[in-house]
Structures are given as C-alpha cells and as structure tokens.
C-alpha cells in the first residue's frame, strides 16, 4: 500500500527523484569501478610462464622472509630476489644454473635489434636459452668471451657495447633468436655470465627426483606449471607495481566511497526535507508515524535498487577504461586490464549492496523524523524546518572532528614518520571532512553571516536560518571537493618538497653530482672506480635500497611487530666530505661491513648491535657507530655498499679539493662522457626530475582527485537543482511580492555564492589543520619545511565549484513565471 502511494507521488516530484537517482547511480558507479579495478589488481596476472615455459621444474630461493608467529607463518616479501645459496647448488648436481643480470645495449635494444620493446633487458648464460625455449634463427651460439646472441634481427658480426653493472663491454653479435614477450635478452657464454654475475638466480631441472629433493630443503621454492611465471623478470616487477597500485587503490576507493556516501546522503536528506508538507498531509489523512516512515524508506529502497543497478552497469563500462588509463600512465604493468568474468560478481555485488545500504541508511534518520511530523504542519502555511538538528548528527560531527584532530596531533607529535603514509593522511583528512559535513547545518549560519547586507542578504540569511538542513545539503559537495583537494594536494606537494629538500641537504657540500645516463638504472662499478682514481677530488657513490628491521621501540612497553618490515636506507662507498649527513654522535669514518649509522628515530645508542636483514634476506648484525639527526628525505639507515644489495648506485657526490679543481673537473667529465652519464653542478640538481616514483604518485593523486571532484561537481549540480525546484512556491511568492525574474536570479546566485564561501571557509580551516599538523611533524622530525599550497589548482577548483553551483541554482528559474 505504501508503495503505491510512494510510486504515485514520485510522478509529481520527478526532479527530486531524478536528482537522488542520479546521485546514487553515479556514486555506485564510482564504487563499482574502483571495486572492479581493485579486484583485477588483487587477482594478479594470469600470465603464462615465458622464460621457463620449457623447463619443468624451476628452483628458486624463497622470495619472502618467513617467521612463525601466533597465527601461523607470516611472510614479508623481500625487496630483492635472493640468490640460490652455494650449498644448495652443491646438493643438486644435475640442475642447470640460470642467471639473470642487468645488461643493456648501448644505443637501445629496439633500435639496434628491432622487435617489440617489451620487458627489461637482461643478460643470461646461453644454457638459459633452452628454457624458454629460444632456438637460433641465424648465426651460432656464443662460444667465447665477447660473443653475444640477441633476440630480433641484427647484423651478424656487428660490434656493439653492452653496459653491465661492472661497466661497459665491447662485444660482437654472433647469432639471433626470435623475440618473445617479457624480456629483451642478451645471451653470453655460461662462463662469461658466471663472471659477470656470480650469483645463481634459479636452478632448472627436468628430473622429478631432484625437484623433490629441492622441495625438502629449507628456504627454497620449487615452481611448476603456471607458478613458473613468478620467476619471469617482468613478474617480479609487475608484482611490485601491482602491490603499489593496490595500496593506492585502497586509499582511492576509501575516498571515493566517502564522497559518494556523503553526496547521496545529502541528496536523500534534502529530498525528504522538501516533502514535509506532503508527509504531514498523509498524517492528517490517517497515516500512522510508522506508515509514513515506512513509505519514506520504501521509496529510498526503490530508488536505491534502481540507482544501484544503473550504477553497476555504468561501473562495468568504466572499469576497463580506467584500467587502460592506469596502464597507460605507468601506474601498473602494461598488460593490466579489467576482464568481466564470474569473478567480477563479488565486486559488483559489493557496489550494489553499498548503494542500497547508503540509500536506506541515509533516510533512516530522515524517515524517523518524517514519522514525527505533526499533522498540524499540513495546516500551516509556512514550511519551516524544526530548529533542532538531531543530536545524533551533532555528536557524530563533533566525534569525527575530535577523532581527526586527536589523530593529527598524535601523528604530528608522536609518530612524525607516519605523515608519509598515504593511508594515515587519508584517514585524518576524511575524519575532518566528515566532521565538517555532519556539522554543516550548524556552520552554514555563522559562516554566511558576512553576506547579511542588502535585500538579498536578508532573504539569504533568513532562508538559511529556517532551513539549515537544506542549506547544508547544498554545501556538502562543495565542502568535500575543496576540502579534499586542498588537504591532499597540499600535503602531497609539501611532502615532495620536503623530500627534495632532504636530498639537497645531502648534496649541500658537494660541487658536482654524477647521474646515470637517461634510460639506465644506475651508475656502473667501472665508472665509480674511475672517478675514484681521479686526483683532486673526493667522491662517494650512494645507492638507494631498503633493509628489513623490526620497528623501533617507541616506548618501553610497545608491542614489537612480529615481522620485520622494510625501511628506506642508503649504501655508501665511504664517508666523504662530499656527502653531508647530519651526524650527532659518533663518526661515519667507522662505517664498514659490520657497522651501521642510524637516525634518532631508532632510539639506539652508540655501540648497540642491531639485527637487520639485507634486501635479499640475509640476516646481519651491525654495530651502531654513528647517530644521525632525522633527515627529511626519509632515509634512516646508512650502511656500506656491501650491505646494500645488488642495486646500482643512483648518484655520486663529488667535492673538489680546491687546488687541482680545474683539471679534476675536466677528468671527471671525460670519464662520465664515456658512458653517457651526466655531470651536473650540485646547485642545479633537482631530485624530483629523476624520481619516477614521485611522478607516479602525482598521477595517481590526480586520478583520485579527478574522480572525487567530478562526482562532487555532479553532487553540487543535483542538490542545487533539487533545492531550487523545491522552492518554486516560495519563489513564486517572491515574484508576487514584486521581485523581477532578474532579482530572483540574483538572490539565488548570491545564496549559492554565499554557501560556496561557507564551504571554502570550512575547507580552509580543515586544510589549515592538516597542513599545520604536517608542518609540526616535519619540524619535529627533521627541521622546519615550508608548506606548499598549490594555489592555482585550488583557485581553479573553487571557481569551478562556485560556477556549477550558481548555474545549477538559477537554471530552473530562467523559464519562470509568477503564476507557477
């Protein structure tokens, strides 16, 4: 029965119905898109093995650190794939050794050899060719040092230079194989491969007995079937990219869901508020409070189901497009895509249920209040909202604000390093914005006070005072857009600036920095050695890496996390005046293979021994020989290059000795030019240019904000439209009292602008808090950092919000007549 009445009344209020339906459908589509992409990212690649397709059993060292804890075995993925230990090789004599190492054709693989440029370029021993299998298409296999076989088309006998971690090699192409996706290989003789990269990356065998013996040995994994793809070079890279993408998508999904829910709830609340007289009428005719509440809920469920279904359909359309964009931007492996299979059903179901749940929950409170409407309200001429906003909303809003501020304070003062964690940042911003959204009805009045002048101002202020819920609904989307953008963009830009500043600090005493050539992963050992050989300068190479360690104890009683986690670290050749590290106690001169320098966040003292793991999982015990002040670059551990794993140095800091400066510089540039590496004066070095991770984060951020902003813009438009069309009787009355159409348009414009101003003011307060907390955190951790606020972008977003609000508010009035 209630459904019939609900359905029939929908016909007369189709604008409000359309508004809420649109808000819900789009919100659910955003959630569905995110869920589908997240599901695809979590599912991992269903790729078939490439390098080892013809090798039945592939034996590798365990790529994760495992330990027993209370619930079983926990695993932490290692930053670097460990080598197969020599002892194991001795125990499995029949297995063939496979090696993969950095090797790059000078001049470009694709340019010299042709073929598709997919995957990293890697060097192998020739026996590895049989695993894929690669079969010779021309020439002969490498038979001596200096002979290589490549994949593609090449002129045989052609001399080329190959860059390896050790330095450049002059070689000749003696044969070719057909190219395969996944890598661009360079095959050396087995002996030369063993010389270039002594470590064995995998053992391959076709004997089941050997495989069984290997499986029984600790610290090994035996891959067969589809699992062999894990050993493919791109798989490791893809894993890392997908892990990063998932983390980012988690935050993106949380923010999108929050925005969607806030906008949908506002739209529904507004829709119910506009119908108070209709509902009071039903009460006079004989509907009990429960019947009225049930009707409102039934309507919401109806709109919820229809809107969610529509939203899921839209999500199905958009998710593959988003995945393609993500892959195109380099945020994920190139093959990343969203396939719609039976496995997508859970993601869509979640989005659908979320939409219906939000629709019903957001009217729960409104429905209860609808039931409390007295019948006499239908008999009154004026539609004035009850002046009390529900206590639930008040306490909820205050609760969120308090929680947000408390978390911010805790992070700023106690855990400054957490400010770089995207999830913590997102949570703080969301809590503060949620608090502001819930408290919006209380804030609109005071925040629009400056606009009280003039006729328009009088009407605006009175309107807001008697309808704070409606005004709040109009403010919420703008508040979300501006609040989120300023906070998130501001903190991201500030963090980037701080990281930059940290790196510049390191280089402050250097005269020059030597950077790798474009397209190479780092500086070769040969180059570093040659720089060291130049007289008249002091140089040290710095390698970015990460070491595993247990989290530092903050208080005496803190719970130690059972598993070690990776921490950013650098490996250096030696202490050098070229590299500025803020040493508080001890000396870097004592740094060697058994020692380490840590910053104060570790709360260690000189002489203490720390248990750490190298990037490949080897445990080491290192003695603390220096304590550093915290650096803004985020690096807290300094070790020698030997403990830093296989990564190549990313920069060499050079400081001239003063007397022999000119000659030294000349020699430096000659040496660097041989390998196309760049020598840049330290003052002109901008680390951000070389940081691809930063760039990816920036793109990801833009995606996130783009979605939130687009959706909020729709929210602004729909609530403004609903609001104005619901006020038709009131506006008609204004016309009757003598207002021209232009005056009414001006009043609506002014009100929209006033509300946008309120949103901006509240957002400014929130962002001020967030950025202020960030400043405090940085100040405590590493010294004061200037706060970067992207004014231009924020101005553009605010302007666009204001424009959308004004247009959407005045549109219904443009075709307006007094008789309506």
């Amino acid at each position, binding site marked *: *029965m209630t459904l019939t*009445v609900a359905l*029939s*009344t929908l*016909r*007369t209020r189709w604008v409000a119905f359309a508004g809420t339906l649109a808000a819900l459908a789009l919100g659910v589509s955003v959630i569905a898109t995110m869920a589908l992409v997240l599901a695809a990212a979590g599912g991992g690649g269903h790729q078939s093995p490439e390098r080892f397709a013809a090798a039945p059993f592939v034996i590798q060292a365990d790529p994760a650190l495992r330990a027993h804890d209370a619930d079983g075995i926990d695993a932490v993925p290692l930053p670097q794939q460990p080598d197969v230990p020599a002892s194991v090789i001795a125990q499995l004599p029949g297995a063939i050794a496979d090696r993969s190492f950095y090797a790059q054709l000078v001049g470009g693989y694709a340019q010299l050899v042709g073929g598709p440029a997919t995957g990293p370029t890697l060097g192998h021993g020739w026996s590895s060719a049989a695993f894929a299998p690669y079969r010779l298409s021309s020439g002969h296999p490498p038979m001596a040092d200096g002979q290589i076989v490549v994949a593609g088309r090449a002129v045989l006998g052609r001399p080329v230079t190959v860059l390896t971690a050790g330095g450049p090699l002059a070689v000749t192409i003696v044969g070719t194989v057909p190219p395969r996706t996944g890598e661009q290989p360079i095959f050396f003789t087995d002996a030369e491969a063993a010389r270039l990269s002594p470590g064995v990356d995998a053992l391959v065998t076709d004997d089941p007995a050997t495989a069984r013996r290997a499986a029984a040995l600790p610290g090994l994994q035996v891959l067969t079937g589809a699992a062999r793809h894990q050993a493919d070079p791109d798989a490791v890279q893809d894993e890392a990219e997908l892990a990063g993408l998932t983390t980012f998508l988690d935050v993106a999904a949380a923010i999108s869901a929050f925005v969607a829910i806030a906008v949908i709830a506002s739209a529904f609340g507004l829709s119910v508020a506009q119908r108070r007289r209709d509902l009071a*009428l*039903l*009460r*006079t*005719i*004989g*509907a*009990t*409070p*429960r*019947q009225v509440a049930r009707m409102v809920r039934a309507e919401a469920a109806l709109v919820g189901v229809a809107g969610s279904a529509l939203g899921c359909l839209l999500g199905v359309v958009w998710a593959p497009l988003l995945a393609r964009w993500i892959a195109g931007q380099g945020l994920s492996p190139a093959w990343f895509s969203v396939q719609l299979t039976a496995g997508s059903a859970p993601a869509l179901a979640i989005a659908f249920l979320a939409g219906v749940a939000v629709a019903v929950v957001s009217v729960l409170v409104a429905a209860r209040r609808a039931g409390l409407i*007295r*019948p*006499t309200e*239908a*008999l009154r001429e004026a539609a004035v909202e009850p002046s009390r906003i529900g206590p639930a909303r008040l306490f909820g809003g205050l609760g969120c604000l308090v929680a947000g501020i408390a978390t911010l304070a805790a992070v700023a003062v106690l855990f400054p390093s957490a400010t770089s964690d995207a999830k913590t940042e997102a949570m703080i911003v969301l809590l503060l914005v949620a608090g502001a959204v819930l408290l919006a009805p209380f804030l609109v009045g005071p925040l629009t006070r400056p606009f009280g002048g003039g006729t328009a101002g009088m009407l605006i202020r009175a309107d807001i005072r008697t309808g704070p819920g409606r005004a709040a609904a109009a403010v919420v989307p703008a508040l979300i857009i501006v609040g989120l953008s300023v906070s998130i963009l501001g903190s991201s830009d500030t963090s980037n600036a701080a990281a930059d500043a940290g790196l510049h600090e390191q280089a402050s005493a250097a005269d020059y920095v030597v950077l790798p050539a474009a397209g190479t992963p780092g500086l070769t050992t040969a180059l570093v050695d040659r720089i060291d050989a130049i007289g008249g300068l002091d140089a040290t190479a710095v390698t970015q890496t990460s070491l595993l360690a247990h989290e530092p104890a903050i208080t005496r009683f803190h719970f130690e996390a059972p598993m070690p986690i990776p921490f950013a670290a650098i490996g250096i050749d030696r202490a050098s005046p070229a590299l500025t590290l803020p040493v508080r106690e001890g000396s870097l001169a004592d740094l060697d293979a058994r020692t380490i320098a840590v910053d104060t966040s570790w709360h260690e003292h000189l002489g203490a021994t720390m248990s750490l793991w190298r990037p490949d999982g080897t445990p080491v015990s290192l003695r603390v020989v220096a304590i550093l002040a915290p650096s803004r670059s985020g690096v807290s551990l300094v070790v020698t290059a030997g403990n830093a794993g296989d990564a190549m140095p990313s920069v060499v800091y050079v400081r001239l000795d003063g007397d022999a400066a000119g000659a030294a510089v000349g020699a430096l540039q000659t040496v660097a030019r041989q390998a196309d590496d760049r020598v840049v004066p330290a003052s002109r070095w901008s680390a951000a240019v070389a940081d691809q991770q930063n760039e990816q984060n920036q793109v990801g951020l833009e995606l996130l904000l783009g979605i939130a902003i687009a959706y909020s813009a729709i929210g602004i438009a729909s609530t403004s439209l609903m609001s104005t069309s619901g006020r038709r009787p009131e506006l008609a009355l204004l016309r009757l009292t003598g207002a021209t159409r232009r005056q009414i348009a001006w009043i609506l414009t002014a009100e929209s602008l006033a509300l946008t101003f309120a949103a901006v003011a509240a957002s400014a307060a929130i962002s001020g808090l967030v950025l202020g907390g960030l400043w405090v955190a940085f100040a405590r951790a590493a010294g004061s950092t200037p706060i970067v606020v992207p004014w231009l972008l924020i101005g553009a977003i605010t302007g666009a919000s204001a424009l959308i609000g004004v247009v959407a508010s005045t549109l219904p009035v443009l075709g307006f007549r007094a008789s309506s």
Partner: protein
Amino acid sequence: MPPDGSDRLHEGMNADAIAVLIESLTRTYGSGPDTVTALDRVTLAFPAGSFTAVMGPSGSGKSTLLQCAAGLDRPDSGEVSINGTRLGGLGETALTVLRRERIGFVFQSFNLMPSLTAAQNVELPLRLAGRRPEPAAIKAALAAVGLADRARHRPSELSGGQQQRVAIARALAARPQVLFADEPTGALDTGTSRDVLRLLRALVTEQGQTIIMVTHDPIAAAWADRVVFLADGRIAGALDRPTAEAVATRMTQLEVSA
C-alpha cells in the same frame, strides 16, 4: 453566561448522547512574554447527531479548538473524549488509528493528494487502515456527494467545489462517528457553498451524523442546529436554531466588545 466560560448546557443531557466532550481545554503557543493563549480552559459538549457551528473573530481559537478536538493537535491541559474514549492517554499511533476509524476531517484547503484520482483519494484513509474497500462502496461515496462521474479525475481537473466534495466523501468513507469541518466553504463561491452546506445538513438530518463546523460566515452558521461563540480562547455564548441575522448581530457585538 457564567463567568468562568464553561458551558452548562450539557447538564441534564444523557451522557451516552454526547459525541464529543471537551473539558477544561487549554492550549498556548510560544513562551515567556510572547505566550499566546489560544484556548483558556474551554469546556464544551457536542451531542450525538447534532450540527454545531463554532464561530468567533480571528484569533479566537476556533481552529485550535477543532484541531484539538479532532486529535490533530495536543492540548497543554484538559481532556477530549470522543464517545467516551479519552484522547489524552493515547500515543501517536493509537491516536492516528482512532482518528482513522472514528473521526472525519474536512479542511478549508481541501488537502487532496494531487497525484491521486478522486476515487483513490476517497479510499486512501481506508487503505492506510489496511482495508481494501469495495469499488462499489467508493462509487457510492462519490455518488452521495454527486461526483460519481468524476471518479477517475485528478484534483487539478476538478473545480474548488468539486474538490471540497471529494474531501467530504473522503472524510465520510470510513463512516466516522464525528465529522469535523474547518471552514469548509471558505474557498467557495455562494452557490457552491450552499450545495456543500445542504449536503452536510442532509447527512445530519437523514443519517444522524454528528458534525462540528468552524466558520466565520453567518450564512453557513445558520445551517447548524446550534452556534457556539468563541472569543479570546473562551466561550462567549451560544445560539440555538440560529438565523443568519441573529448570528451576524451576535458576532458584531463580540467584535465590538473585544
């Protein structure tokens, strides 16, 4: 009239014959120095099967009296009883149910659901009560007000008088014990007003319906059995078997002495 404003006419009446009994009803609005007393300890009895008009100058509290008597509003103090059932102790839901079953209300502004047809409007209270009325019964209800041929029309397609008659049919559909009418002819022209009043009169005379009507129009009041005058929230007199001139004269006296 007795100075305390109570009406002693119900003394001597058979208690069972009282349809609506109002005892010491008080209703105020606002607080502090701005308090407005709409009703001040009003006591009144309406016999069953009677047609009573409640009249008074604006601000006399007559609409408030009607709304409190019909259970649409709650008084600050005092008691309302409909055929022996006290309204004061009932919760919102119970009060609504009682209104649905025993009270009909006709408003000045018709208050029909604009999206429903005349027939759907008439049966709405019954359906809200969970009953499925016979289509024939609805047709009969509309026929009784002379609108059998307009059953499928929406309010926007009906004239003011027709809408008011649909509202009356709606109020009568549940066969209420008492019908309250708040200025039922206020928005109608003289001819249509007469038709509506004739209809109401017929209900009382032929079917023994109890009707309590608030009006400011002496001609409308003349159709009633009895007129009760209200001024400043208190009873200011009554007139049995009223004529329009007598009512108008009394009203003028009240307005002048206020």
